[in-house]
């Protein structure tokens, strides 16, 4: 039993992640020593995760508004108008640390959390994506983490019933002790039926919904409880277990409840569940909150106020209820076998009061818990702008075909089929383009042809070399992936994963990336409507590669006019859009085939005006059904893009490199803003003419056909051989040490 009147020692304060000056701030704010429960509440509200104390200043610089933006950052997820009275609601969130400790459950609960964020706002989830970063393949823990994370992501989404349609996977030593699991979810709702977390009305019941509260994930408390809790025979695991079945019930019950008109405000319980959700709802509505913990449904006996306030048990919600509809609301939850308990009331005195067993366990000013959270302008230091790489410093490969095959079988470049075949990407029956292409395309349920496209992207090695360009590039690549399927890019969400912000160089990476993201989003009219920051991702003092993952959503008026990457027929012209300059700095070729792991040269620069021009052109061509396949050029460069199209279509091509560049620079350079298109041979000239008229460099580089790729009349490269290499690496790697 943890007592509430325990002496607040400096050690206890430190264990709660509060700095001495932050504790002083608490003392000044409340004019007395906090109780243990209050200390817990402060630690939850003022930690990096909830308060964004290191990042807030910079997040404010992001563009968050736009014609279609119904709700930007500040709610559970962003809301964007997609016409016809409909809205898409989406967000991305990290579950990095829990996933490293227990990969399966960590990833599963990450997916559960983001799905809840989306349906809390009244949306039925229609798509999930996941951006995953693992340690180097040879690291002893990597396989275990990969296998658990993938099983966890799949296990939760499959059972819940949302199609997992895309994502990304990278391997890098910087993630050896700190994997990244970033989960994205999108949902669909009527634009006039969005639910928010702002409480309204005094004296109204606050209702607890969903699963019961247990001692899951009580972080700060673990150490404390070890001390106070001498007679526990086993150290309490803090791992949260996902229960997708309960979440599915919660979804159905919530949507039914929302349709009933009983919901005034609603908020899911995520990190520091009851504390964060109750404080946010009250503070947003300028109301106080009185909680009666005796009414909270508990899974375990003897839970203290401290534990209940900090528990991160999953599949729970809090709402302000219209009392007139209480019986109706309750019946819905009982029908779905979920807990429904009135645990509090809204008040007009702006206090956050927590009662248990007749005692007041906490009594704090509710606004200040959020508003007065520390905010830091952390010192930052920008790394010097890197110089461009001299392409002639890189050796040419002996055999370009062998180099291509090797490249396609690299951990970072191989097929992710092993991953996404464990995800149900078809459920709901609306998947038009699943994993394996540029962006996923999902038909809007109930419409004939309207569609939404989704992608998540970032190239961490670019961000490490030049945070600003890397930030820009992440947004540009999203833009490109959406355009490449024919979608109009609407808006983005971000998941900013970095190391320790107290180090000026790491903070410099953060600031640089945000500036780059902001600039790209502004230039491309691509507002940031939601997001999440994950800092302190480091092991033994070494940070991860800066990884600001961007998730993006686009709109298609007609999914039958979307493009896919596969070659469709023989004798079609292959046209490259955009200029090929052979930029090899930070390229996969340099890093993995030319020994450039320590490359510090500049990543390919991103020209945003050109991105827009090229993307707009490609989208128009797709919508006019004038092109038969489209793929953007990214990691690995042009030849890799073409090979991916060939493998997807099981068809070869004859290619000619009309260039002054060294062949490997032409083939593997990672210049931005490029697309590969195919069109019937007879229409190639017209396509090129249209592009040039739009001011876009376009060039025919070959013709589809046969079962081989031939470059400049060289040795034919078997597409089947490439495919075997490409498809083979991940399953082979994972089979080496099977897991259960």
């Amino acid at each position, binding site marked *: 039993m943890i007592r509430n009147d325990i002496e607040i020692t400096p050690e206890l304060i430190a264990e709660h992640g509060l700095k001495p000056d932050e504790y002083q701030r608490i003392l000044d704010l409340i004019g007395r020593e906090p109780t243990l429960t209050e200390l817990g509440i402060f630690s939850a509200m003022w930690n990096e995760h909830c308060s964004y104390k290191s990042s807030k200043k910079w997040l404010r610089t992001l563009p968050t508004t736009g014609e279609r933006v119904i709700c930007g950052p500040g709610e559970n997820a962003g809301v964007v108008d997609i016409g016809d009275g409909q809205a898409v609601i989406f967000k991305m969130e990290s579950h990095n640390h829990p996933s490293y400790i227990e990969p399966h459950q960590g990833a599963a609960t990450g997916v559960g959390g983001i799905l809840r964020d989306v349906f809390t706002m009244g949306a039925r989830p229609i798509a999930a994506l996941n951006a995953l970063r693992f340690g180097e393949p040879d690291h002893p823990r990597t396989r275990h983490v990969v296998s658990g994370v993938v*099983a966890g992501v*799949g*296990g939760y989404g*499959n*059972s*819940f*019933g949302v199609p997992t349609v895309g994502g990304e996977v990278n391997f890098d030593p910087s993630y050896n002790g700190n994997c990244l699991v970033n989960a994205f979810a999108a949902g669909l709702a009527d634009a006039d039926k969005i639910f928010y977390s702002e409480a309204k009305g005094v004296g109204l019941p606050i209702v607890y919904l969903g699963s019961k509260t247990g001692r899951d994930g009580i972080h700060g408390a673990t150490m404390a409880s070890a001390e106070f809790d001498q007679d526990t025979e086993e150290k309490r695991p803090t791992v949260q277990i996902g*229960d*997708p*079945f*309960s979440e*599915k*019930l919660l979804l159905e019950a919530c949507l039914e409840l929302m349709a009933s008109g009983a919901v005034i405000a609603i908020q899911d319980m995520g990190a520091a569940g009851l504390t964060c959700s109750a404080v946010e709802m009250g503070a947003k509505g300028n109301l106080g909150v009185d909680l009666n913990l005796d009414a909270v449904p508990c899974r375990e006996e003897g839970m203290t106020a401290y534990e209940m306030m900090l528990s991160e048990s999953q599949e729970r919600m809090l709402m302000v209820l219209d009392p007139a509809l209480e019986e109706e609301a309750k019946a819905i939850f009982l029908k*779905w*076998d979920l807990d429904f308990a009135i645990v509090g009331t809204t008040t007009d005195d702006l206090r956050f009061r927590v009662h248990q067993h007749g005692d007041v366990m906490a009594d704090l000013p509710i606004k200040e818990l959020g508003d007065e959270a520390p905010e830091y302008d952390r010192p930052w230091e920008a790394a010097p702008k890197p110089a461009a790489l001299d392409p002639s410093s890189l050796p040419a490969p002996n055999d370009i075909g062998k180099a291509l095959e090797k490249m396609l079988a690299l951990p970072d470049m191989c097929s992710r089929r092993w991953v*996404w*075949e*464990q*995800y*149900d*990407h*078809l*459920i*709901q*029956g*609306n*998947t*038009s383009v699943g994993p394996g292409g540029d962006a996923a395309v999902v*038909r809007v349920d109930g419409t004939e042809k309207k569609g939404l496209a989704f992608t998540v992207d970032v190239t961490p090695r670019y961000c490490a070399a030049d945070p600003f360009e890397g930030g820009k590039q992440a947004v540009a690549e999203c833009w490109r992936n959406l355009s490449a399927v024919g979608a109009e890019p609407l808006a983005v969400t971000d998941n900013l994963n970095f190391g320790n912000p107290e180090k000026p160089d790491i903070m410099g990476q953060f600031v640089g990336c945000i500036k780059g993201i902001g600039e790209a989003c502004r230039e491309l009219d691509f507002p940031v409507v939601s997001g999440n920051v994950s800092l302190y991702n480091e092991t033994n003092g070494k940070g991860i590669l800066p990884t600001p993952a961007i998730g993006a959503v686009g709109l298609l008026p007609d*999914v*039958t006019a979307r493009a896919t990457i596969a070659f469709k027929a023989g004798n079609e012209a292959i046209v490259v859009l955009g200029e090929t300059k052979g930029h090899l700095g930070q390229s996969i070729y340099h890093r993995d085939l030319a020994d450039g792991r320590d490359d510090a040269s500049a990543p390919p620069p991103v020209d945003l005006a050109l991105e827009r021009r090229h993307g707009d052109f490609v989208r128009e061509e797709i919508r006019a059904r004038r092109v038969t396949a489209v793929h953007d050029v990214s990691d690995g460069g042009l030849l890799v893009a073409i090979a991916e199209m060939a493998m997807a279509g099981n068809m070869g091509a004859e290619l000619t490199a009309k260039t002054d560049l060294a062949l490997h620079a032409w083939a593997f350079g990672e210049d931005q803003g490029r697309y590969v298109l195919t069109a019937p041979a007879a229409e190639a000239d017209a396509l090129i003419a249209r592009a040039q008229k739009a001011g876009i460099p376009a060039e025919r580089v070959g013709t589809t056909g046969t079962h081989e790729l031939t470059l400049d009349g060289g040795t034919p490269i078997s597409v089947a051989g490439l495919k075997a290499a490409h498809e083979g690496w991940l399953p082979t790697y994972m089979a080496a040490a099977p897991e*259960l």
Partner: protein
Amino acid sequence: MKSAVIVFPGSNRERDMLNALEMISGTRPAAVWHADSELPDVDLVVVPGGFSYGDYLRTGAIAARAHIMPAVAKAAERGVRVLGVCNGFQILCETGLLPGVLMRNADLKFVCREVMLETANADTDFTRKYAQGQVWRCPVAHGEGNYFADEATIERLEGEGRVGLRYAKGDNPNGSINDIAGILNERGNVFGMMPHPENMIEELNGCTDGRALFESVLEAVA
């Protein structure tokens, strides 16, 4: 055709099935809640895919004991066609309407991909619109589709033409015995299958090979 789709807590492909049946039969099926004890008067009862009750304990085990299931069994007795897809197949096995059991996939992984199916018996109410031996495309999405029954049962199933669908050679995604993808009861009016024909019925799906399965039932009850 009048049809009903049973909905359990945790079912999640019931909407796909409702939509598919409506698209193909022209009539919106009734969605029947697990806690009901009666079925409407229908020609076809479908137990859809999903994770009923989280598939906790054993797949389909808890759903098989739901209130509505005796009514489904009675309907089957009366000769009403009953189709179980994926979790529905697992549930029908658990209720005993179909023999055998679906174990975890041999590689213990959930698998979602397109497979080739072979119509092993085209002379059934569920497959008549396919040609005998026809190979067609259909997605699977399951973690426990590894069909198993004792030798005697398998022999009977095979001998009586009750294996309706098989995974085409080399395309068995789960280790299922004899590549079995779908089986019939003795009378031929109850059919269970792991793949999802309801996700292969319109241009959006890239192929419409799954339609013929529903069209077969449509014809059978006409």
